[in-house]
């Protein structure tokens, strides 16, 4: 066997490395795949909609929901309609509601869409926009907020002289009621509140009136409360415009013009400025959807 001189061997080795690098480079260029790093915490991933009144456009999107199939629902308060987008952001259908203004939306695990409209909580099959029924509201009680709940149902807040936290099952029936939950510890009735449940069943109620977030255990027992300040330099901006919890237990809170992240015990973690969201929801893949008036924006949540 002919022996290869050392210099020639080095040259061939270098040449081999160059060829390999070129092949890798060519493959990368041809596939169009830029070196994608995992989305960072809070990073914007995509947007749905733009300003306008046409299909897939929005004027006052102040409610958002997402189902387990990845369909995203945007409730437009001014236009009185809900638009259903698929996971790619394409408009599938839209439905107008003649009942009044849309306040809140939530999907249960079966894909039933709950629409809170003029203090009533209506259940729809969003594939056909068939009205399935209405959640009972005895007397003068009025619904205030709705969100995905434990056990595949939804959780709702109801104004019934003071306030109730309700667990609603997959059939739209109220299974548990925690009476006067917030009023008992604050002496204030809820004002434009939001509600969310974490994977352990702990319940969080964000109250616009007191600028506080109240935490309850799965049995409705009060645990703690903490103040919320979206902009410490401007106390007038201590608003709560949305509440959602990711798989890591991070509590996402939309403020006047920002989105803030807290730990489950109320410790401040992150602040994302210039985000004017009015409602938040998080899907099974830890994607955060924010209703931002003229669009719904998708952000990365979960691991920090």
């Amino acid at each position: 066997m002919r022996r290869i001189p050392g210099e020639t061997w080095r040259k061939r080795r270098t040449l081999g490395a160059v060829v390999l690098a070129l092949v890798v480079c060519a493959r990368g260029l041809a596939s169009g795949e830029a070196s994608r790093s995992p989305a960072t915490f809070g990073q914007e991933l995509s947007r749905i909609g733009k300003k306008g009144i046409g299909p897939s456009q929005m004027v006052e999107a102040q409610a958002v929901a997402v189902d387990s199939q990845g369909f995203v629902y945007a409730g437009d308060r001014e236009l009185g309609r809900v638009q259903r987008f698929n996971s790619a952001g394409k408009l599938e259908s839209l439905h107008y509601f003649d009942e009044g203004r849309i306040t809140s939306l939530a999907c249960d695990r079966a894909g039933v869409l709950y629409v809170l409209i003029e203090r009533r909580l209506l259940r729809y099959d969003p594939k056909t926009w068939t009205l399935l029924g209405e959640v009972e509201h005895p007397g003068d009680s009025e619904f205030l907020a709705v969100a995905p709940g434990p056990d595949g149902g939804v959780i709702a807040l109801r104004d019934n002289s003071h306030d109730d936290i309700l667990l609603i099952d997959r059939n739209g029936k109220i299974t548990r009621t925690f009476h006067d939950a917030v009023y008992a510890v604050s002496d204030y009735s809820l004002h434009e509140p939001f509600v969310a449940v974490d994977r352990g069943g702990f319940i969080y109620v964000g109250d616009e009136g007191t600028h506080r977030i109240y935490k309850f255990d799965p049995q409705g027992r009060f645990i703690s409360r903490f103040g919320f300040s979206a902009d410490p330099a401007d106390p007038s901006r201590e608003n709560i415009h949305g509440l959602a919890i990711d798989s890591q237990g991070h509590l996402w809170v939309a403020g006047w013009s920002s989105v803030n992240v807290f730990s489950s015990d109320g410790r401040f973690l992150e602040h994302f400025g210039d985000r004017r969201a009015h409602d938040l929801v998080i899907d099974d893949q830890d994607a955060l959807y924010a209703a931002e008036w003229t669009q719904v924006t998708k952000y990365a949540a979960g691991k920090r």
Partner: protein
Amino acid sequence: MLNLRRVSLLSVLILGFIACCAHFGAGQLAASGFQEAALAPLKASKPEVMPEPPREDSGRVHFKPAGTKPMEKVTLVAVGPEGFVYAGDPGAGRVLRFKPSGELASQFPLQETRSPWTGLAVDRGGTVYVAAGDRLFRYEGGTGKLLGEVRHPDGPGFFHVAPRPDSGVIASWRNPRRDDLVLVDGEGAIETIHRNAVSGATGEPMGDVLVAMDGRRTLYAAVSKLHAVCVFEFTGKYVNRFGSDGAEPGQFSGPFTGLTVDGQQRIFVSDAKGVSIFSDAGRYLRQSEAHGTGLAVSDDDELFAANGTEIVKYSAGEP
């Protein structure tokens, strides 16, 4: 000698690089659904007429069929939710369906060839509605299969049709005594008839009326006899009207030929003068550079105008 070897080596490297790109590039094309175009066998027989790519100028796209009978008198246009553009060619009794890029995707002859052909619309489900000979027919957009007919309880009289933002269409209907606005649902069933809507607002039957509906569900009816556009609530309640007969900006001349609305609350009206643009409050904004008879708007607020021999798309910023 050494230089020659180096040059050869470099050439091999470059060729290898290009080959790699071609190889992996073809794989990428196949993965993205373009494999048929990339791998289609060449035909050695008679030379084919190469499709004329859609012509673009100033952001406009011209839709003209290549390799088939040219359009001669296209007066109607519609845009579907997927971005497909439909041209109504009454002379040939056919509907041409263009891809959003401008290439002809398919065409189908009308199974119900009635005249005059006065309306064309596509609803959110992709169903094509054709108003012809006072009747309103429904076709499957992809295949051209006749799905059925929308029947007004008082008989034929449909004139114009336009898409609703949710599902179905709105249509105008008239007889010698009154003018109705008819709301049709996504299954082709009549949902609501606003009886005597236009004639009730104007005090007498107005005949041929063009219709449109915006994202607030406001209804617009362009009345040629009145040289005005009447505005109605979704419930059919008359709100007001704008426009008059004349040659001044904001006035109308001759019969209306097109009416559509976009997502930016603009109303586009075509008549003998061209295409005029109004705000949703009826305030005259300006004259459009668009030319055409039938008008339609896409979800991206692009304006499409039927111009006899072609359809022209104007970008969202224009006109």
